[in-house]
């Protein structure tokens, strides 16, 4: 079973993603901020990261920059889920391991499952 680490500081949003991904057959863990995400990564590496951009404390981009500087975390594919980053920025975000950008305000269970599945497939190719 593939593991998804959700990095989202809105507990209710994180719970909705968890519900959808668990129903899709994923093992899900949650971190409520960038620091909590790094702690989770130290414990166990997930197969995919689902990251929000606007977080309290260090934001999602700062987290991705940190991850890219660690060889252990470099290969983990990232799906960004944000209401402030347009998907047109995806090419410039690929350097951070971002394989998909999802718009929070139009997200559905199907779109989330597709993006996570696609990120897993691309990472294993």
């Amino acid at each position: 079973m593939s593991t998804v680490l959700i990095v989202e500081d809105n507990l209710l949003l994180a719970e909705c993603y968890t519900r959808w991904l668990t129903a899709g057959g994923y093992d899900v863990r949650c971190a409520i901020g960038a620091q909590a995400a790094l702690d989770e990564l130290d414990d166990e590496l997930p197969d995919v990261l689902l990251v929000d951009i606007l977080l309290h404390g260090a934001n999602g981009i700062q987290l991705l920059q940190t991850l890219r500087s660690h060889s252990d975390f470099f290969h983990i594919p990232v799906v960004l889920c944000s209401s402030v980053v347009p998907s047109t920025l995806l090419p410039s975000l690929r350097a951070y391991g971002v394989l998909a950008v999802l718009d929070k305000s139009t997200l559905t269970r199907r779109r989330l499952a597709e993006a996570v599945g696609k990120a897993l497939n691309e990472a294993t190719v």
Partner: protein
Amino acid sequence: MRGRNNRQGQQSFFADETAVVMAAAHELKSPLTLITYIAQILADKTLGLSDVERADYLRRLQVVSERALRLTQQLAVSYRIREDQVGFVFNLEPINVNMVCESALHELAPYAREYDQMVCFKAARRAQTVIANREILHDVLTNLIENAIRHNAPKTEVTMMARTRDGKVRLNVHDNGELISAREVLRLRQTLGRSPQPLTGHAGTSGLGLYIVSQLASAMGGSLGIGRAKRGTTFFVDLYKSQQMNLW
């Protein structure tokens, strides 16, 4: 010269207006997104929700909808005060602080529970009365409590206190979130009451809530301030103490 000043004033007004609209749109996205997700989950029969889970999601739907409604209500009042809109009249009268604090606490308790937090009110031994408008003071407090809940760590407490000082009553709302630096406190002090920033790169930092609180407090002759504690941050509102005999 006057024409130039007017033009500058108009430009500044539209810049402020745009910032407020952008920040409001951004802040409203969060509860509306949640409402959409919860509605999707409730409608999705393949998720096999139990009756208890369904009831829990419906309760959350109500909490989140109330948050969105509070924000729109506060935005409307703030706009009417700012524009000095004709016909928008509100009374200032002696108000029992304890009653309004208790009422704000009661309203926000379900919201705090969603974030695994508690809100408590440490009432002074003698009830204090301030010159205020009951509804507007209620809006001020709910906004400050909501702000504290968003910045607080889970399993902690938001504390409200009322203290008399130099003919004024200070209403404190304290969170136990991350300690902010003295420089950040200084920056916040300088920006309190100014136009919000639509996008700052961090969650919940547009400043829209504090902008609204600052306007509402000013309309009652009061002011908004910020203080720093060993742990967390305190936002406070100073209001004139009523000289009327205390009947409570």
